């Protein structure tokens, strides 16, 4: 019963956040205006006939806000689900979707596209996003491959260490490219801080399939991740194929993180806080935790995006700044109160 209430609350919260985000921005709209604009667009002229629906409002809601808002929700959900999968794999609530270094891979891809793309003739709309996506996937695969070389080290710990090392390695190349191409500094800087400004339906259509696939993969891992909660040795004795779980968890989380990063840049803390809030609401069983964490991630990023658009309007802040300002203190609280004897 309590769980049903929690689930309902999360769904309603996500809808409310979505709606609130449509209202917020440089022009503040009332919920009624947003509802009318959506109705006019979805139900056609018959709906708008009796009402005073303004074409400009419809354009703001439909063209400028709805796509980016949905994109933020999808990115947040992908980060929330990916975060909880890696936390389950590492048995550690301080892991996040970028623990495997995929954010550095994405950054390197994006920076290469921004700085080097035009020079080699690879400059097309969406080149940055595409490069970021594949950079993230490549980094995840590389980390997995490197961590699997030495069969003597504990493979899961090796994943975490390889993720850190390869992340730093790739970041060095990001810095190198930026240093050598000073003119692109501004574009790179803004991309890395993350944001959904100027994103539209096309971006949503690109991000959605990867996010959905990653989410489905994460859901399929729910039970194995529960089994792993007992520890690797105990899980092996319960019949868990650890290698299979490891490769699928890395694949699902990397795909989710890649979808999110391609959609909105390297947005921090959502993949850490989504799981954290979801644990408080639905507990620790992954079959509930994964959907709840996706919902919590979506809500967090929707709210952060709404704040980013509104506080300094008409100027839009990078959403990564907002998530970091809210997220870092919460993360520190989590660090201070998490159980003893744990290390990331």
């Amino acid at each position, binding site marked *: 019963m309590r769980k049903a209430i929690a689930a309902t609350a999360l769904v309603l919260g996500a809808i409310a956040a979505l709606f609130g985000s449509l209202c917020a921005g440089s022009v503040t709209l009332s919920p009624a205006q947003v509802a009318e604009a959506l109705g006019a667009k979805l139900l056609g002229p018959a709906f708008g006939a009796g009402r005073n629906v303004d074409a400009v409002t419809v354009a703001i809601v439909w063209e400028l806000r709805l796509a980016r808002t949905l994109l933020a929700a999808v990115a947040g959900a992908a980060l929330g689900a990916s975060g909880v999968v890696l936390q389950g794999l590492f048995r550690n609530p301080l892991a996040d979707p970028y623990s495997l270094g995929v954010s550095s891979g994405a950054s390197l891809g994006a920076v290469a596209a921004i700085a080097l793309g035009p020079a080699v003739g690879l400059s097309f709309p969406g080149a940055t996003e595409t490069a970021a996506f594949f950079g993230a996937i490549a980094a995840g695969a590389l980390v997995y491959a490197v961590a699997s070389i030495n069969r003597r080290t504990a493979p899961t710990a090796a994943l975490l260490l390889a993720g850190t090392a390869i992340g730093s390695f790739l970041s060095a190349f990001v810095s190198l490219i930026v240093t050598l191409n000073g003119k692109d500094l501004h574009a790179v800087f803004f991309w890395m801080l993350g944001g959904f400004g100027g994103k539209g339906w096309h971006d949503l259509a690109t991000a959605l399939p990867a996010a959905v696939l990653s989410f489905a993969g994460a859901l399929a891992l729910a039970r194995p991740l529960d*089994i792993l909660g007992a520890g690797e040795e105990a899980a092996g004795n319960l019949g868990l194929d650890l290698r299979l779980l490891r490769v699928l968890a890395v694949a699902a989380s990397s795909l989710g993180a890649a979808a999110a990063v391609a959609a909105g840049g390297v947005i921090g803390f959502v993949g850490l806080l989504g799981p954290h809030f979801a644990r408080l609401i639905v507990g620790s069983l992954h079959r509930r935790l994964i959907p709840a964490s996706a919902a919590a991630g979506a809500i967090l990023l929707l709210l952060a995006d709404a704040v980013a658009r509104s506080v300094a309007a008409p100027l839009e802040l990078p959403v990564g700044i907002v998530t970091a300002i809210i997220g870092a203190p919460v993360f520190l609280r989590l660090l201070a109160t998490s159980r003893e004897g744990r290390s990331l």
Partner: protein
Amino acid sequence: MSAASKWGKRAGGALDAAAKASGSLPILLAEGITVGYRPGEPVLREVFLHLERGKVLAVIGPNGAGKTTLFRALSGELPLLDGRVRLTIEGEFPGSRQDLHRLSPRRRALYVTRVLQSEQPAWPVPVADYVEAGLFASEGWFRRDAAGAGRVVAASLERMGIAGLARRLVTELSGGEFRRVVIARALAQDPDILLLDEPTADLDMAHQLETLSTLRELARSGKAVAFSVHDLNLAAMIADEVVLIAEGRIAAQGKPAEVLTPEVIRAAYGARVIVEPHPSGAVPHIILDPEWLRAK
């Protein structure tokens, strides 16, 4: 109908029952296994032993002798450097003995499981859900029958006398309670062979005996049970057979009274002991020799 039977594991039910009645068929055989963590550095050499339905085997030996390593090999977790571990479970592997190490982890977990000496749950999960993990081997990555699973879990908790803990969080239990939760999970898993790594460590006297009598009862219900233990008197009290491991080999093997002699113990542990009949009856009773203590 248990979850395991749905998976088609119990094909040879009649054979199974017959074997249980006769009560002494070896179902796991270690055939000259050499075990270690690195090639060329064996921890245990040329171990021959077998586990039988209805019997409890105690594995004893000094610290670091390789008791846990032996169990890891017998559970199939640790690849062997040499030799073979075979399963001969009635009706399961027609015409051949199955090499345990060739089975997939899930298949293996249907036949044999090792209960660890200590285990640290990562998440605060309710006891009932933690015990339900025992059904993973028979159900797989997706839950099939939630109601059936609920019944198996309830019965396992009941059998360990911890039905009242079902809704408590595993991270908030005492050591003794958690130990019983882990054994309840092994009951839900329901393999033919149970290996328990020092199941009595950290337990008080009464809980030690309670746990060991559960092992006896498991054996009586047709399981093959092996446990490692430091307290030689507990081994003598509970086990049908004792295996003493020392210096990387089986140093002695047999009935408790045959293995637990002052000479054998002295050779393995370097400690002088007095062995006399236990006041209550047939089992040997081992006491450290006070003279030897003083001489140290």
